[in-house]
């Protein structure tokens, strides 16, 4: 009895030394605004104060808002296209740079560098490219593809967003896939070679199943980062032309800080969180299940 009390006191003391301050900061900065945010969506909050509860009115208004739906579908399209392309390219690059050859390290650096730079700067770089450099170059060389500024039409503006995202994130995923490829034991690959397994078969039947966790991680990170994407969207298209490339993040920002609709803005932000949570959990469950089955 005395011993458990002493232990409990020691535990409280340790908590005061090690855990209290970090958890207080975490609670104040992250948990409090999050919970308040959910609470506010049920009130007539104006950014500073609220007077009465309004039930689900903010959610109803959000779901009735056409531009919000547009932003949601835009985001799904963007996440889908990026998820496939970023990982396809990232895995391809990983295969390429793990071939033992001179210069592989330089290639690795070239592919990884865009990732070091923030989305806003990357967006600005590509704004210059699409707006100025590429049209003139295409004209000078008589290439039809980039003659018009891609950022001025909804379709091409969407794909320019995807291109920049692939350029930005594929190098990062490459690093994760390289780590996965390196973790495969040489004995396994030698055994496969002796058994007569060739390149493509070794890749699909042995390498990919053995590095399934790298795919889980990369897909998860791409999913999370693209659902939350804001910087590139802001700096490259600013949501334009005519709000056609506005992703959820930017939409929420404009709704609240641009138009001053704090209640619906926050309701949309909560919906965004729910979408991300469901998508991320579903993806991890599916990936883990395929990992285990193999």
């Amino acid at each position, binding site marked *: 009895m005395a011993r458990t009390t002493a232990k409990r006191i020691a535990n409280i003391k340790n908590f005061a030394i090690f855990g209290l301050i970090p958890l207080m900061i975490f609670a104040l900065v992250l948990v409090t605004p999050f919970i308040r945010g959910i609470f506010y969506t049920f009130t007539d909050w104006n950014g500073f104060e609220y007077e009465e509860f309004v039930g689900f009115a903010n959610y109803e208004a959000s779901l009735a808002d056409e531009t919000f739906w547009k932003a949601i579908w835009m985001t799904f399209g963007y996440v889908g296209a990026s998820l496939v392309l970023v990982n396809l390219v990232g895995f391809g690059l990983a295969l390429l740079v793990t071939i033992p050859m001179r210069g592989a390290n330089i290639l690795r650096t*070239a592919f990884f560098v865009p990732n*070091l730079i923030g989305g806003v700067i990357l967006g600005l770089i590509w704004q210059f490219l699409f707006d100025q450099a590429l049209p003139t170059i295409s004209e000078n060389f008589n290439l039809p593809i980039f003659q018009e500024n891609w950022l001025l039409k909804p379709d091409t503006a969407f794909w320019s967003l995807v291109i920049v995202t692939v350029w930005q994130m594929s190098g990062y995923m490459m690093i994760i896939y390289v780590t996965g490829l390196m973790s495969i034991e040489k004995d396994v690959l030698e055994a496969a070679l002796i058994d007569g397994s060739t390149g493509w078969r070794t890749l699909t039947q042995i390498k990919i199943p053995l590095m399934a966790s790298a795919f889980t991680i990369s897909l998860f990170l791409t999913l999370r980062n693209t659902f939350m994407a804001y910087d590139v969207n802001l700096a490259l298209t600013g949501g334009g032309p005519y709000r056609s490339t506005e992703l959820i993040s930017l939409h929420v920002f404009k709704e609240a*800080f641009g138009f001053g609709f704090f209640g619906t803005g926050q309701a949309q932000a909560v919906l965004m969180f729910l979408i991300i949570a469901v998508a991320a959990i579903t993806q991890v469950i599916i990936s883990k299940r395929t990992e285990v089955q193999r």
Partner: protein
Amino acid sequence: MKRQRVINRVLFAMGAVLAILYAFPFFMVLLNSFKEKRAIRNDPLALPEEWLFANYLEAAEKMDYWISLGNSILITILSVGAIIIVSSMLAYYLARTKTKFSAVTFIILVSSMIVPFQALMIPFVGLFGSLGMLASQPALVFFYVGFGVSMSTFLYHGFIKNIPTELDEAASIDGASAFATFRRIIFPMLNPVTATVAIINALWIWNDYLLPSLVLTQEQRTLPLRTYVFYGTYTSDYGLAMAGLVISIIPIIAFYFLMQKQIIAGVSAGAVK
């Protein structure tokens, strides 16, 4: 074997083309940063007729480059330092205490990692605005600790779990206090994770846009904020805008070449765990 060599050559050529494609945007920005507006209009690919460094001087002055660079460095270093201290201690506590409370806390921390900043951004501004905590650099550091602590604690936790408790016990028998045990014995063993935590957080904070754009005033602005405003103001003068982009990219690239090994190791370790 000869066939293998040919294949390798082809693959290398493919890799080189891809690498050039990846570097092309940077190359364009760099090349045109030395030109005047008219030369860019005519042919963005051409070498400048004369290499104009004036763009750089003007951009650095108009962006308050040295001030914003200083702001970025200060905020990044202070935040990363604070995150390292706070999360290593929290992780030590959570990993060594086998109570329901610590288990639940850990789960809350981990699940908070999928909460997008946008989901709490609006009440965040309301709450800290009314507390008078916006428009301040120390407050921004405080916020970074709050947002960074979960991921970093998670990384530390995974490592501390595998350090045998016998070490702590031996130290406590020798009369060391709990804090001394942590500081002298455990923390030095965490160096590899500390490197990972430092690099992941440094890259995030250095490049972050949204949070500082809500918190900082004009004079306190970090490099990405300055660059964005600067670019927006001078879109008519592309040479100047390009020079601004180049000088805002240089510090992080320099950092990468200094710490290449640690960065690659940190990024892969941080992601895989």
